[in-house]
């Protein structure tokens, strides 16, 4: 698969105050490769540098150092050509207040060089796609947050971009609207096969939408890969809690496949498995055959939040460690 985005050694420092003496190093040598047609997520806490990285890749911001290639074009010198093929939508969307939904889309459609009937058709299509029909004549400042976000997404598809940058697309939205927006993002990507680069601090959103994920913290990529790969990297495993009657054979536990760790106390047992879904069935069979009567059982699978915390701990204790 060809690369849509390739970034190497991206550095960015913001200087402020008198004499530009106050420095804030926001990105510290970020490398990234994103394939055409994938949804790639950049996950990290507030202030990690997600928006700065996305702004650089979308040509809104120039890096201090580093190289960027977007479809093979130079991200620093070919900005204008790149901007023809990309677009952005961000959370807490803002557009000119007194323009209506339709007028905002017409305006941005013109900025992307769409003319006459083609623009009309595109605007109508997007108004229908995002269910904005009843609000097409409503000024932007009278829209609800969810409607504003839908307009932002509609605007970002005006030029049928090959790369779509989504900066915290569901921030500030209620859960119901967030779910709907996520579904729309997924459907659009599936239908058009475009590359999406998404930043979020919501681990569940990243897991739901993204094929691959990069953890960004204090301007550095801690790790990247699929959600499954990342979970395996940290080896914190899935936790099985068992309440039982009779005995539990520690010998059997030691022999069972995939057991990372365990602890047994009076009638209760906690077992850490490397892959809960795959190992749980055989483990239960083994315990039952050895005479353990299982009264209650629960499985808590590791999620991206646990993984991120683990990576953060590792990077804090060993700043040289980057995966």
């Amino acid at each position: 698969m060809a690369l849509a985005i390739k970034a190497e050694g991206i550095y960015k420092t913001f200087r402020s105050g008198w004499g530009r003496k106050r420095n804030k190093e926001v990105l510290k040598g970020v490398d990234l490769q994103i394939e055409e047609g994938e949804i790639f997520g950049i996950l990290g806490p507030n202030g990690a540098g997600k928006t700065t990285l996305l702004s650089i890749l979308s040509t809104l911001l120039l890096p201090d150092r580093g190289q960027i290639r977007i479809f093979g074009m130079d991200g620093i010198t070919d900005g204008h050509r790149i901007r023809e093929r990309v677009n952005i939508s961000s959370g807490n969307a803002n557009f000119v207040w007194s323009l209506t939904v339709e007028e905002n889309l017409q305006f941005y459609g013109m900025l992307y060089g769409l003319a006459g009937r083609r623009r009309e058709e595109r605007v109508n299509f997007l108004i229908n796609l995002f269910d904005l029909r009843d609000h097409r004549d409503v000024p932007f400042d009278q829209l609800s947050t969810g409607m504003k976000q839908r307009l932002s997404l509609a605007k970002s598809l005006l030029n049928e971009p090959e790369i779509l940058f989504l900066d915290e697309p569901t921030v500030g939205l209620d859960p119901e609207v967030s779910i709907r927006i996520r579904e729309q993002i997924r459907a659009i990507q599936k239908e058009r096969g475009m590359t999406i680069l998404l930043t979020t601090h919501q681990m569940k959103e990243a897991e739901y939408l993204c094929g691959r994920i990069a953890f960004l913290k204090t301007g550095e990529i801690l790790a990247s890969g699929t959600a499954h790969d990342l979970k395996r990297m940290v080896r914190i495993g899935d936790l099985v809690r068992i309440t039982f009657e009779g005995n539990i054979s520690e010998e059997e536990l030691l022999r069972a496949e995939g057991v990372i760790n365990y602890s047994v106390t009076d009638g209760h047992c906690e077992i850490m498995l490397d892959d809960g879904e795959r190992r749980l069935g055989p483990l239960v069979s083994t315990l039952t055959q050895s005479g353990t009567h299982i009264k209650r059982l629960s499985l808590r699978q590791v999620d991206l939040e646990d993984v991120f915390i683990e990576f953060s701990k590792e990077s804090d204790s060993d700043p040289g460690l980057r995966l």
Partner: protein
Amino acid sequence: MSLSSFQKNLIRIQAFAFKNWIITKRNFFSLSEILFWPLVGLFSVGLLTVFLKLDADMTGFILIGVMSMSLIQVCQIDVAYALLYDLWAKSMKHTFIAPIHSFQLILGSWFIGMLRSSFVFLLLSIFSLLAFHFNFFRSGFLTVLFFLLGLFLIAVLIGLCVCILVLLFGYKAEVAAWSITSLMALICGIYYPVSILPSPLPGIARAIPLTYFLEYFRSFYGFRNELTYPLGWGFGLIGFYLLLGAILFKMVLHHARSKGTFVRLSE
């Protein structure tokens, strides 16, 4: 059918004209800019000339100044609005992630500025004729045309200057949209000849195109030219400043991309 680069340029220019046009027709403050303030300015100064019992030529001298200031202010604010609306709405990044050129932004908004300003000119011409018996068309249609073209070009220079300041200083610079014209009026002799200014202001006035256009237009109302070839100097200076402004604007846009201005002003 794919569009030529020229057609795409026209559409993008149309985009900025479209935005300014919609805002003009929808906002009360925008309407007051072309109806209320110019008329208040004309009447208050016009009545002052009546009170001071100024002769017809002197009244014309002052009304030409009032008219010029209103026309420049209305036209330049439209150019400045191209960025100011994005600044106020925090939508700047959406404009600058689109594949636009700086000249498209300026030309589109300037077009609406010229329309609004032409309307103000007609309005003030009628009222000054009716209320103060001063005819702006006495000098001839072509003279009025050159004079207006000069004022519109000065307006685009001021608007460009405001845009540059907004990109450099953000919200702190928005006041420039209302103050640069007044400052220029002070130096270029809106209500008096520049020769009465204390040194070194007359020298500075000679570096500002408005001085030459006021001199040119007033020469048709009985005032002797103190400057030679005012029209040539006026347009020449405008050409020079436009070139300088275009280069500066391009540099400032690059600076804004480097400093994160578009992102910062959109948060």
